[in-house]
């Protein structure tokens, strides 16, 4: 933030922060426009059409008349002002910003999505905000912001042979709880973090929301920077904390050898080892791989590895939702779609489906679902009980028909 303003800022100072990208999704977008038009007039223009995007991901394609209307309100507004719309076929907005090189280290972005701190996976400052904030930013390109106090988290440990970034993430959520980082900016360091690939970083950053953090930054490594530079078409530099950064707290977590973890209903913080839950014989009805937390190509490959020489057990459904069109395309060209199909999976179009309610079906009373998503609150995906786990755990579980520790397969 200091770099952005060209002067040092201190925690709890309130600043006006210029934004590089301002977005609205189909959830909230129509209200942003309503506020904007009411405040600034029917013909009012935006601060810079190039830096605004609409992303239709929540309900894609619209399956209620209300969403369909709201999406059309956004399209009409955008057309008049030359704003780009990533329509219902594009995928999850936060992932699009990363894929398209719009979210880069040190850049700022806001949107009507409470998981925008996912952009910290590439060292960008992303924030979810309400309709009024976004309407104001459409007009002015900035928002007010109270500089949060920063917590430095050093994670020691290593991933076990059948564990992945989601297991690490769940272990961290377990440690901090839902209010553990309330209102804080958090920076993640440590060997195990450094070895995460970009999808793994996305997984970790995405669940900062579940710990109530405002910002989650993972300083990008060389391989991530290279990938970003290619996407952006310009060289990128990593961001590093100021040498004189004042941390309000420094936490070192020693997670040892991280084993597969799972969050039980109805809270992402009710985390236990999969082995413990598996021991209790939890029968499942549905599996889900997708969401902004685990909807990348690498997540689907990790899941498929568990199904390779087998298939989904009769009576259980596995639903797949790639995060973006690019992910879907890669799954297609690398044969993963067909192989999942042969294993018995149901493959849905890209977007938030399965996480945002309703899109790939809801869970019924008594139904047990194991999902790679990030929230399992009561009623979020229907009346059933949702467990949160890694793609490997979900796939191993749908193969067995009950919550199961994934095998070592790499």
């Amino acid at each position: 933030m200091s770099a952005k303003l060209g002067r040092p800022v201190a925690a709890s100072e309130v600043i006006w922060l210029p934004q590089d990208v301002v977005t609205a999704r189909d959830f909230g977008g129509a209200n942003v426009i309503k506020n904007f038009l009411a405040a600034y007039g029917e013909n009012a223009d935006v601060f810079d059409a190039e830096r605004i995007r609409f992303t239709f991901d929540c309900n894609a394609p619209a399956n209620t008349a209300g969403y369909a209307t709201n999406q059309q309100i956004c399209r009409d507004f955008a057309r008049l002002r030359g704003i780009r719309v990533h329509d219902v076929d594009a995928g999850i907005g936060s992932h699009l910003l990363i894929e398209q090189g719009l979210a880069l280290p040190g850049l700022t972005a806001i949107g009507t999505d409470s998981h925008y701190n996912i952009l910290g996976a590439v060292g960008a400052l992303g924030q979810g905000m309400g309709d009024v904030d976004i309407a104001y930013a459409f007009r002015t390109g900035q928002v007010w912001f109270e500089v949060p106090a920063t917590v430095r988290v050093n994670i020691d440990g290593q991933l076990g042979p059948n564990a992945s970034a989601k297991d690490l993430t769940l272990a961290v959520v377990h440690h901090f709880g839902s209010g553990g980082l309330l209102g804080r900016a958090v920076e993640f360091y440590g060997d195990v973090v450094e070895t995460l690939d970009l999808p793994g970083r996305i997984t970790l950053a995405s669940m900062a929301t579940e710990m109530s953090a405002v910002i989650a930054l993972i300083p990008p490594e060389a391989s991530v920077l290279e990938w970003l530079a290619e996407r952006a078409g310009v060289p990128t530099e990593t961001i590093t904390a100021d040498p004189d950064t004042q941390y309000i707290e420094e936490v070192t977590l020693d997670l040892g050898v991280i084993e597969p973890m799972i969050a039980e209903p109805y809270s992402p913080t009710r985390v236990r080892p999969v082995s413990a839950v598996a021991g209790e014989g939890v029968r499942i009805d549905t599996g889900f791989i997708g969401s902004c937390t685990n909807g990348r190509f690498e997540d689907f490959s990790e899941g498929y590895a568990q199904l390779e020489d087998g298939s989904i057990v009769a009576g259980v459904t596995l639903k797949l939702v790639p995060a973006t069109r690019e992910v879907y395309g890669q799954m297609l060209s690398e044969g993963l779609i067909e192989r999942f199909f042969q294993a018995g999976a149901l493959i849905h179009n890209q977007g938030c489906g399965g996480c945002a309610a309703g899109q790939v079906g809801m869970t019924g009373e008594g139904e047990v679902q194991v999902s790679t998503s990030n929230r399992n609150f009561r009623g979020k995906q229907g009346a059933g009980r949702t467990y949160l786990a890694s793609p490997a755990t979900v796939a191993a579980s749908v193969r067995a028909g009950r919550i199961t520790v994934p095998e070592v397969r790499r």
Partner: protein
Amino acid sequence: MSQMRVTGSAFPLVDASGALLDNIDTDMIFHNRWLHITEPSQMAQHAFGNLEGYEDFTARVEPGSWVVVGRNFGAGSSRQQAVECFKALGCAGVIARSVAPIYLRNAINTALPIAQMPDLAGAIELGDELVLDFATGTVTNLRPGQVHVPTPAISRVQVEIYRAGGLLNLQ
């Protein structure tokens, strides 16, 4: 321009033991089955409609009352209706021990008076006269004549936005 001093009587939301309720989330304030409502007058009747023990809040609360609550008020979704419903009811505003970040922004942006006072427990009773003074950044309880300074302090930006009658009126 809005009044710089906001006066009203306190309506604390408490549990059976009289402690201020913590963790009232946006679904308890304004349930998601009413999310399609965009008309403020219709939002009023659903305030706290899903909060156990306070389903009849709208019938009990007098216009001009302060909603007084515990910690982490308004966690959950970014729905603006959870703020608008109190404006529509004519509430003076919200005084909480702490407020979830997005809710706080939404309240400030729509010029709903809001203040956080972490050590509030037990200091305010039903019917106490409370004055939030934006000029001095204080909350005074006229009954014992106690003056509180909210922490975190009411920021200059909040006062500017409040004065303008909302973020979108700022020039």
